[in-house]
């Protein structure tokens, strides 16, 4: 039977279990939209293509399933770029469909033609341009496999408009359109696992560094088992937040530029470091050569290209985190681990040394008190937090207790301002029963706030908590600390009025004046059927500490504001 390319696309999406698509139509995807008219796939109309990409990303990160977005050719496609680069840096499975001008027009500078393959090749895991409707089933099958297996990542499929219209005899297969891609995880070298078990059992001061790979491989249970078996404290990268319940006694929280000071010191003092599913980002490690300098380093990662890229390790184990951890647990069961009492006491000492003064009673609207209130109100496993970029993100990372995997969603690698809100919408679509809160900055939120319209019209209620310092706070902090307080281009002047802005979109807007009012506002927002924007005014003089200055090593962490 003859069907159109567009129908073949919709059928392929259904075959992949796609239930929802985020998109914005345009001339070059109209045949596809027309085919969607007859399908039960939910289409969510965004207001900017950057947002539909972030929504698909948020959906993917919250659910673990690929998130799908559509944009038209030319400007629609180029608007996806930031979203794809964000997903690429954080290894998130996004499948983007773009319309393209008709085949015979490609390369003639046709109306709304952009060489999107040329543009996104370096920021996608892979991309396809379809040249005939017959290819559709194979390409879609391959695209979803590539996006979601091994180290996940975004994939783009560019589809000329005449291919969408083309009538063809289309055969649906599960065959893959690639010879060089093996979707199966690499085979684990069991000798290396045995060696790791030996080293870990003998370690005096073992430490586990857990990254985003633990979450994407679903290895959080194994991670906890291993940590408890070894009595080894666990630190995380920003992407690793939620891979271990952060209220667990063995969890020390995030390390890195704005990591907890005692967690950073644990890295400095450990004798064996087991890093799992982390790419040793510079924001995590500080100066590469100084990172865990004295420690024997074991690195578990699914991506061979990450081994020795930034930090040289003693024992690399290439494989899926969950599988490696299972094997490691099995090996460790055969061995007796050393007592870690001294090490755990030392950790306690570090913790109390650095926590002094930090824990004073807070009643004012301060970033930490706002986020700690969220810890109290948000139920573990029933809530998701997303963030903007800047101070708001780092405060969230420092103070928010992610107690379940996929409950903390943030743009780690690219640091994309404007990510938090659309990602929250995507997460809410994936998990409608969870409370989704975007902790945002005023600058970040302004970059994508127009999708308040999407949240209201599509019925996707989330809560936006703006830590509003009327400035590009993190830039201001850098100018304060490193550019002699010569503040330039950071003043947002409290514009716009976010309460009125929210109301203009038909959302709720509140500006609490105290912590009690905030608590009340949050409780109401959790019950509210539309999105609520909570504008929390904080001082522009608030800075994020601890901080490891750029280019410095973790032991040089400034635990608090330097005296000047």
């Amino acid at each position, binding site marked *: 039977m003859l069907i159109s390319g567009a129908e073949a696309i919709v059928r392929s999406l259904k075959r992949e279990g796609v239930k929802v698509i985020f998109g914005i139509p345009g001339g070059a995807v109209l045949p596809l939209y027309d085919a969607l008219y007859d399908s039960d796939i939910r289409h969510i109309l965004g207001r900017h293509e950057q947002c539909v990409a972030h929504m698909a990303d948020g959906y993917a990160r919250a659910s673990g399933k690929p998130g799908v977005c559509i944009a038209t050719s030319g400007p629609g496609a180029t608007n996806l770029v930031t979203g794809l680069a964000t997903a690429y840096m954080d290894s998130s499975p996004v499948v983007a469909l773009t319309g393209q001008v008709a085949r015979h027009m490609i390369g003639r500078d046709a109306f709304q033609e952009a060489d999107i*393959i*040329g543009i996104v*090749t*370096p920021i996608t895991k*892979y*991309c396809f*341009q379809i040249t005939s409707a017959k290819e559709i089933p194979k390409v879609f099958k*391959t695209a979803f496999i*590539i996006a979601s297996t091994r180290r996940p990542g975004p994939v783009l499929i560019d589809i000329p408009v005449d291919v969408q219209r083309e009538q063809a005899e289309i055969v649906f297969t599960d065959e893959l359109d*690639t*010879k*060089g*891609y093996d979707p199966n995880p690499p085979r684990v070298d069991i000798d290396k696992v045995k060696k790791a078990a030996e080293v870990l059992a003998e370690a005096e001061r073992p430490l586990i560094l857990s990254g985003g790979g633990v979450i994407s491989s679903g290895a959080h249970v194994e991670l906890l088992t291993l940590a408890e078996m070894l009595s080894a404290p666990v630190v995380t990268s920003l992407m690793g937040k939620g891979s271990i319940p952060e209220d667990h006694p063995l969890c020390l929280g995030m390390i890195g530029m704005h990591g907890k000071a005692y967690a950073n010191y644990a890295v400095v003092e450990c004798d064996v470091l087991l890093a799992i599913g982390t790419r040793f980002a510079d924001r995590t490690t500080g100066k590469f050569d100084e990172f865990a300098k004295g420690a024997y380093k074991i690195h578990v990662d699914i*991506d*061979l*290209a990450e*081994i*020795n*890229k930034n930090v040289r390790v003693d024992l690399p184990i290439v494989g899926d985190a969950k599988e490696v951890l299972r094997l490691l647990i099995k090996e460790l069961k055969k061995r007796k681990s050393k007592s870690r009492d001294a090490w755990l006491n030392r950790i306690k000492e570090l913790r109390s040394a650095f926590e002094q003064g930090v824990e004073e009673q807070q009643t004012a609207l301060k970033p930490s008190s706002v986020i700690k209130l969220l810890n109290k109100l948000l139920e573990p496993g029933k809530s998701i937090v997303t963030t903007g970029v800047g101070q708001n993100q780092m405060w969230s990372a420092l103070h928010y207790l992610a107690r379940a995997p996929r409950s903390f969603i943030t743009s780690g690698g690219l640091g994309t301002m404007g990510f938090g809100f659309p990602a929250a919408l995507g997460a809410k679509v994936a998990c409608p029963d969870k409370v989704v809160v975007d902790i945002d900055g005023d600058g970040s939120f302004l970059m994508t706030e127009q999708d308040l319209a999407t949240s209201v019209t599509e019925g996707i209620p989330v809560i936006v908590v703006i830590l509003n310092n009327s400035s590009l706070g993190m830039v201001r902090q850098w100018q304060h600390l490193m550019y002699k307080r010569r503040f330039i281009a950071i003043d947002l002047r409290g514009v716009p009025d976010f309460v009125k802005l929210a109301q203009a979109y038909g959302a709720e807007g509140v500006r609490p004046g105290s912590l009690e009012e905030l608590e009340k506002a949050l409780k109401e927002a959790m019950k509210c059927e539309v999105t609520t924007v909570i504008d929390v005014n904080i001082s522009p003089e608030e800075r994020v500490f601890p901080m490891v200055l750029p280019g410095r090593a973790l032991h040089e962490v400034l635990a608090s504001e330097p005296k000047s």
Partner: protein
Amino acid sequence: MSQKAEPRILVMIVEDKPGVLYKVSSIIRRRGINIDAISVATTTEPGISKMTFLVNTDEATIEQLTRQIEKVPTVISVGSSPLRNLYSKELALVKVNVSKPGEREALHTLVAKFNARIIEEKAFTLTIEVVGSPEEVSAFINEVKVIAEIVDLSRSGPIALSR
């Protein structure tokens, strides 16, 4: 691991699809590495090509590049080796102006010495084909330059096989 930059060959077996060369070369460009020569050709298997790149870099970088390239879905396999450890051959076509007395004879002698071949001989030009290791081809070209003026030159870039 040798931190010394030296000429190295990257050889990959790839699917014959548009965009493979672009993806691979963008991985190399991103590292700020210049590609000194490329050759791409079909293999005995339909739909499969072999690409050979000559780059000048150190061992750690080439290892990183190899692993990055390995991940490209259209790349079936990739390997690298210092140029000196391989059988590598290059072809060059050299067109030379001969106007002064003695030049023609000197070129004939040089051609014999390098086992090269004259493929066209005209009143005022000679076109020579030379095959050899990249070093041999370079040496040949340098010697030609001493004798006469080169008006056109085309080098294929090296292709390589493991020893």
